[in-house]
Structure formats: C-alpha cells, structure tokens
C-alpha cells in the first residue's frame, strides 16, 4: 500500500473542497481499500464522506424512489419502499454478500471497479490501470470477460449487480460539482464503455460527488425481478445476469425494461429485446424470440464463447419468470 493522507469531512461543502483539490472520496471502501492493498489504486489523499447527510431513501411523487449515495447496501436491500416498488433493484443488491452489503454504499456500488484479474495484478498489462500498456485479457484467460461493449483496449466486465437493475429501470445519477452545481445524468450516460480510454469508467468530473440515484416512476402494476447466475451459490460475481421489469395491462406488454450483467463492459441495456416485447402478448414463444436478441453484436473471446448462448437463455428464463408472476 502506498502512503496516503486521510481526512474526514462533515459537510458536503467540505467534501467538495477536498475533492476539488484532488482528494478521493471514500465511504465503505470495499473496492478502494482492496485495490489500494494491491497497489492498483494509489491515491494521495482519501476524503472520508461517511458522515455526510446523504443516507435517506425517499419516495418521488408518482412512484419513483430516490436513494442517497451513502445509504448502505444492506439498508437499501431491506427498504420496504424499494422492495415493493422495484423488487428487481432490491434483489440485485442481494447479489452481494452480507458482509459487503453492510459496508458498501449505493454510491460506492456504482463506482466499483472491475474484477478483471489482470487489472488487479500490477505486474500484468492493463490499459485501464496503465493506459497504453496493452490488454492482457484479450489474449489471456478471459472466461469472466465481456462479450459485449468491449474494444481492442479493454474487455473487462462491470461487476455491479445493482447497476444492472438501474440500467434496466433507466435511473438517473445525481451529482454535485465543487462549484456547487447539481446535475443529473441518465444512468446509461454515467458508466462509460472502454473504447480507447478504458481508464475513464464514469462520466464524472474532478471533485464531483454522487449524491443520489433516482429510479423514475412507472405505470403500475410493474412486475420485476433479477436473476444472477454464478458458478457457486453465493460470494461470487455473476457469469450472466438479467434485470427485467414488465408492465402488462389487458394481456399486452406495455412497458419492458431489460438489462444484462456479467457479460458486458457496462451494464448492458437490451433495447432490441424490449422492442420485441412491447405490444405483444406473453407466451413462451415470445420470451424465446425476444431473448434471441440478447446477444446481438456479441464478440466472444477464447474462454467466454459460452456466454453468447448463456446470456440468451438467462434473459429468456427471466422474461418468463417475470412474465408469469402473479
């Protein structure tokens, strides 16, 4: 671990000042401390924002929800409002182990970095960690890597389950800049695909602070659920996952929100799947047909070819599960 200084702030203003001068925000620290131990991250200054008043979960008029950036995952997971409005989001949070949920916060969750083992090994080539050094995963062991959204520079998967649900539900991220200005970003614009700059993972400016995520209101009833596949039943990152939310009225699907995880460099929205569902009546054939689009555009690597088929089957399973829910 490289030497660093650590300061604790008690107000947003104080945090933003520290952030403006290059401090790195830390709350639960479940990603950052881990990476500092491996010397993947070597921040000079840590700014502990745990004490900031950003840990409220509030209803948004019309049936949306706003989750403060410092709400622990465990609290959000157990929140009755979130569970009743958006089970898919509460379930996605449960993808993490209890220990992580107790420590980690919502803001930290969406800022978490990839599990790519080459990224986490400072002696390996990694464009994300060290731009221009190359990508060891492309020609290396890439079973866990992305079949979607990758580039010649990086194929690391995004590790957050919660972000998959937020992507499906078209959430927004609220940010506050050091100059005091608020802005809201659609979640799809917040996380960046690697392209030729894999070191840039979020659309976030120097010193900006995430204050909350907001899930918008949807027509009701909205049925939703999250499915995560993994090699072992717990304590494991996903091989593939699917977040599905459906609004079915009069026997016809009116709204379909679908995203996939574990397979792409960012949580992967599946608009072709959604479009195939909208206006249709639920049926086994429909689920299969729609899910058939899930891997459109996939570029598999040596060890993750199976994910092309696995993703389609995962999405199909979850469409049927949600579609047939009472």
């Amino acid at each position, binding site marked *: *671990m*490289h*030497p660093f200084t650590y300061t604790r702030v008690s107000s947003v203003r104080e945090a933003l000042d520290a952030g403006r001068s290059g401090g790195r925000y830390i709350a639960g620290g479940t990603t950052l401390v881990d990476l500092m131990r491996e*010397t993947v991250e070597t921040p000079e200054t840590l700014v502990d924002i745990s004490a900031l008043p950003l840990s409220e979960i509030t209803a948004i008029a019309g049936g949306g929800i706003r989750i403060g950036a410092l709400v622990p995952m465990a609290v959000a997971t157990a929140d009755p409002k979130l569970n009743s409005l958006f089970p898919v989001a509460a379930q996605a949070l449960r993808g993490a182990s209890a220990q992580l949920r107790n420590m980690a916060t919502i803001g930290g969750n969406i800022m978490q970095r990839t*599990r790519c*083992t*080459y990224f*986490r*090994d*400072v*002696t*390996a080539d990694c464009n994300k960690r060290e731009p221009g050094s190359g990508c*060891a995963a492309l*020609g*290396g*062991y890439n079973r866990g890597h992305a079949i979607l959204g990758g580039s010649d520079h990086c194929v690391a998967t995004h590790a957050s389950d919660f972000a998959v649900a937020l992507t499906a539900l078209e959430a927004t991220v609220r940010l506050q800049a050091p100059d005091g200005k608020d802005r809201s970003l659609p979640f799809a614009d917040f996380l960046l695909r690697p392209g030729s700059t894999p070191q840039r993972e979020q659309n976030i400016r120097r010193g900006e602070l995430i204050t909350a995520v907001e899930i918008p209101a949807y027509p009701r009833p909205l049925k939703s659920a999250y499915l995560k*596949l993994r*090699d*072992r*039943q*717990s*304590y*494991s*990152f996903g*091989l593939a996952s699917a977040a599905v939310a459906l609004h079915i009225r009069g026997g016809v699907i009116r709204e379909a929100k679908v995203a996939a995880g574990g397979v792409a460099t960012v949580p992967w929205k599946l608009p072709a799947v959604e479009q195939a569902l909208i206006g249709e009546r639920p049926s086994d054939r429909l689920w299969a047909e729609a899910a058939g689009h899930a891997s459109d555009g996939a570029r598999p690597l040596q060890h993750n*070819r*199976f994910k092309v*088929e*696995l993703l389609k*089957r*995962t999405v*199909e*399973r979850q469409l049927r599960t949600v579609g047939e829910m009472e």
Partner: protein
Amino acid sequence: MSPQPQAAVGAPLSRVDGRLKVTGQAEYAAEHDLKGVVHAVIVDAAIGRGRITAIDARAAEKHAGVLRVIHHGNAPKLPYRDNAGSNNPQGRRLRVFQDDRVFFHGQPVAVVVAGTLEAAQHGASLVKVRYDADKPSTDITKAEPGEPTPYARGDAEAGLSSSAVRLDLKYELARNHHNPMEPHATVAQWDGNRLTVWDKTQWVMGTHDEIAAVFDLPADAVRVINPFVGGGFGSGLRCWPHTIVAALAARVTRRPVKLVLSRKQMYFGTGFRPAYEYRLRLGSDRRGRLNAAIHDIDHETSSYETFSEAVLGAGQMMYSMPNVRQAYRQVPLDVNTPIWMRGPGFAPASFVIESAMDELATELGIDPIELRRRNEPAEDESTNEQFSTRRLSECYTVGAREFGWDRRNPEPRSTREGNLLIGLGMAAGAYDCGRYPGQARARLDADGTAVVEAATTDMGPGTYTSQTQVAADALGLTMRTVTFRLGDSEYPFTAPHGGSSTMASVGSAVVDACNKVRRQAIKLAVEDRESPLYGVNADDVVVRNGRLYDRNNTARGETYKSLLARHDRSRLEANGSYEGPGSDRSAYFAYSATFAEVSVDADLGLVRVRRMLGVYDAGRIISPKLADSQALGGIVGGIGQALLEHTVTDHRDGRIVNSSLADYLVPVNADVPDLKAIYLDGEDNAGNLLGVKGLGEVVQVGVAAAIGNAVFNATGRRIRQLPITAEALL
C-alpha cells in the same frame, strides 16, 4: 494386561482446544509475538522463466523503516546440504537467492525487511527487477513428459482387444490449491548459532531437518514450533522456500523476522495438486466382469523436482481383473513443485476410474453398485496380500439403503422438477493409509494429572482431542486431567501429519507410552505392602478416573495421587514408540462409498449438490464428533474438486491468474446443503494398537466421481473434465 475401560475413546467429544480457538487464544505461527520482531515481504518474480539481469533496490532501501533488501546479489551463500528427507522430492530443490535463475512466475527474487509490515510491503513494491525472460512452458498438454513409472500384470493389450466391451476415455483434471484459511507464515529467531522457528507446517521434524540441512546446522541447534495449524490439506507437508527466506533474513538483519505469505503468494509459494491428463482404457465381458485396464497418467511437476503421488494404487487394487498396465509420467513445467493434497493420488485416480465404471454400467445396463460388486476382489491383486479388512460391499449396502438408491431411475434425464433435472450418482473410494514409526512421551504427575507429548500436528482433524482420548483411557484418567502437547521438534519424533497415518501411528505410540506409565504405577501398588492393592495380580488391576482397583473386587484400590505421595514420587514417566506395521503383511486400506444427488438447471447448465452421503469402512472411530468434521470437510473438498476448483495459469508468461479467494472458487455454505457420514462399526487391528484405519484422506476420494455420475444421471451428459462448469453443460 487387563483391558482398560474405554470411557473417552468413542465418545462424541468437542475439541479440547475449541475454547482457545474460538476465543482467539490459540496462537498460530504468524501470531507469535517476539520482542523486536521485524517484518519481511517477498518480492515475486514477474516472469515465468529466465534470469535476473539487475535489481535496483535503492528506492526500497531509502523508504523509511526499511532495514534491508536481500537478493541473490548480496545474500550469503547457503550450504544447502543434501536432505533426502523432509519430503523433498527427487531433484535439486529451489535455493533462495543463491543465483540469478528464475524457474517459475512468482519465485522469490528478493525480500524486503522493515520495522513495520507496511514499510516492508511498500518497500517490496519499490524494488525494481530486470529480467532476461524466456518463454515458459506451463501447459501440460503441450510439454514433453518424463520417463514413465510402469506397472503391469497379465497382458493388458491382449486382454483389452479380446474384451467384448471396450471403453477408451480421456480425462482432464484441473490443478487445485489447498487454500487453508491460515496463510503460511514463519517467525525466525537466531540466538548465536541456534535458530528457533515458529512455522506453519504439518511436520515440525521435516521442517527442522530441512532448515538444519540448508544452513548446515547441527540437529540440536534448530527448533521448530507449531502448536496450531489453521488448515493444511497437505500444503504444509514440506518446508517451502519462504521459511528459509525468513531464517535467512533474520540471520542477515540480526533481528527476529516475521514473514507471512499473502493469499496471492500461497498460489506459487506453496504447492498444489497437479493438473492431470489421464487416459483409461477398460475392457469387460457383457456381464460386467472386468478383464483389462490400461492407464496412461500424466501430471504436472516442476522443472527442478519430480513430484510423485500414489496415483497407481487405485487402478491396481480397487477391482478384480487379470490384466492391468499403467504408465505414470510426470511432465516437467516451469511451475513450482506440487505437493500432496487431500486424498493424494487416489482422489484424481478415483475420479477417472469411478466415472469410467459408471460409463461401463450404463453401457451394459447394469446398476453401478452391482457392477462394482461383480468386480470385488478377494485379495489385493497387485501384491496377492490379503486385505486387513475390506468392507466396501457393506458400504454399498448401507449407503444404498440410507440414501434411497432404489429411487434412482437409471435412465438419464428422467427426473425433473420444473427447470431442474435431478440425478443420483455414486462412487467407491479407497485410501492406502499410512503407518509410520513414531514416538511419544507420557508423564504422570503427583497431583494425578498427566502430560503426553509427541512432535505431531493438528491441522484440523482434532489430534489434540483424539490423542487426549486415547491417552486418558490408557492412563485411566479423565479427559480434563490429561494434557496432550504437539507441534514442537523437541518432542518425540513422529512422521508427517498426513496420509491418514496419525491416529494409527502416533496413537499407537501414545498408547504404548501411557500403558508403560500405568503399568509402572500398578507395579508400585501391587508390590507395596501399604497399598490396598498389595499382592493383587497386576493383570487384574485397572485404572479409572485416576483410581487403581482390582477388577475382581472393585472396592479394593487407591488413587494415583495417594500412591505417588506415599512413594514420594513427583512423577512417573515413560517413552512409547510405534515401529510401523512390522510383520503385518496385509493390504491396509480405508474404503468409502459416496452418494450424491444433484440438480442441474436444464437450460442454464448450473449444477447444485442437493445432498450427499458418505459411508466409511475406516476401522474404529476414536472421536465421532471430529470424525464427522473430517468426513463432511472431505465431502466439501470433493464438491470443490468436482464443480469449482481450478487454478488457472496464463501460459504466455506462466502467471496464475486467479490467485485469490474471489477468483479461485471453493464451496461456500450455500453449496453444501445436506451432508451425512456413516461409519461401519468395527476395528482393523492390522499392525496398530487402536483398531483404526485412517479417515481424513478417504473422505475426499470418490466424491467428485459421485457428483459427475449424478450429473450424468440428471442430464445424460458425461463430463470428463474437472471442474464441471456451466459451459460444459449448456
């Protein structure tokens, strides 16, 4: 000699060291605190093979707190005397910091010693090493094997070609790492030319001998201490380079040094179960009588040592057949040297043989248990020795009944629950349990308590508890009044704590020592006119709860305490020994029948174990509660071997890419829902005083095959690679 009442042996007791462990008072190697201790962190080679061309340690040496950076350019030359013992495999062992050669990715190339762990860690990251790198060879499928170790009986080729039914099957087994919870660690302290080492090891004597050889020290100048081990599974069966690094660093800096491997370093700083390529050809008649088997077995070893394990035994003794040929080859690679891991040799071989037996059963339309029964041998056909005991058939009967084997539909894909396909499978297992010479020392004190010592280890099976049980009964004392001590090279010699040998070997030595002490006391009493036992036949005196009495007149007796007090004796002492099996020439194996029920998601390919049962013919069970921990732990290990565990190497540069517990998956609680162990009642007195066979190894043998066979029954898919993952079943 009258038999002692067995009050402690056979009782389901909790661990005597349980309180120490759960309250954090059990002191593991890395927790040993010495005044003035400094910290050492190893710098790992970043290439897979080649030479070090330059080491720039200036930045590290300048970092506050760093005392010294030691590498081949400045390390003292070490004698590295030959040492054929200590479980060093044949070859030339790795010599730390003695030259510029790099044999594998992660090899220690330097060590940074600093006043704090943080300074040492940061210092290690500042050491710049330049290399002249060669392309390493780490892929077993692309490298040349060494010379084969052959075995043959009959004419296997002819037998095979004349067989009515022939199978030709190729298996690939992944490399596995032990991954004990406790990291390997060493604390080393020199006092002049004497060295004391607190080291995580399964064999203090082996580590002792290796250190003495490396530094060319007289045997009495080295002491190795290791009272507690947080899991081993074989990883502590030899002395690894980091232990020498710690001792070397302590010598150079003239300070006590603590060195703890990181989890990552455990993947190349200690050994592993090697990856296997195994081709099995099997021939039988239409009724399922085996006629011939040809085993072609390759596994990984390092370029500098030839590791071998007992992979041939199962193919020779498991089933009756006239014709067997085996060729066992090690494939030298640019990796570190493997080491035995739970069920060594038998666990990989049994996956192959027991999976193939299941295929044969399917081919012939015979129930897998019935097929095994038809090939049950009357003797060990490789040696023509009688089995000491072999009750495998009974294991099948009990297992089939308890598991509900009759509910298994032999037709694959015939049982469905929603999206899940359900399957049942079974496999047999055996393990060649060790019986090695060893010693113990027992002392009965005037207060009526006793201390028993042996240089053995408790890596988790509960040696402390089970040896206390054995000693308590032999001495006629309660558990609470007997203390068993282990893990110190100054205690009487014992063999490595592995190979399911400890209870038979150390246990027999403990019984011997305790019997001698008890007999001394009895002799004192019956020859003492003032004793109530005066004149009683010594053979009629038994001891219970510290009281000696005439078994024909139980009112007649006295306590150890009063006896010793009257004789003004502060203690009675004796050394005990066990010489090994001696004249016993029987084939001494433990057996298992393992049953598994799995579900496989028909669309998503995910395998989940639903329940498992192991039935064991392991001789007498000394400590049933701890036996259950052993058996269930072994099944969990087998679930890992079957479905999850796989050390992955990047063959481009030889680096291990999943060297963490987030990336190398072992089973978690959710993966092990319903496990049960049953032990056949009985004893095996072949060459040991306790009637035991070993348990700790056999419990993992056959588990992976039982699961693989259940996966076949569920899905109709035969997977011949371990681990069995989703991609194989999509």
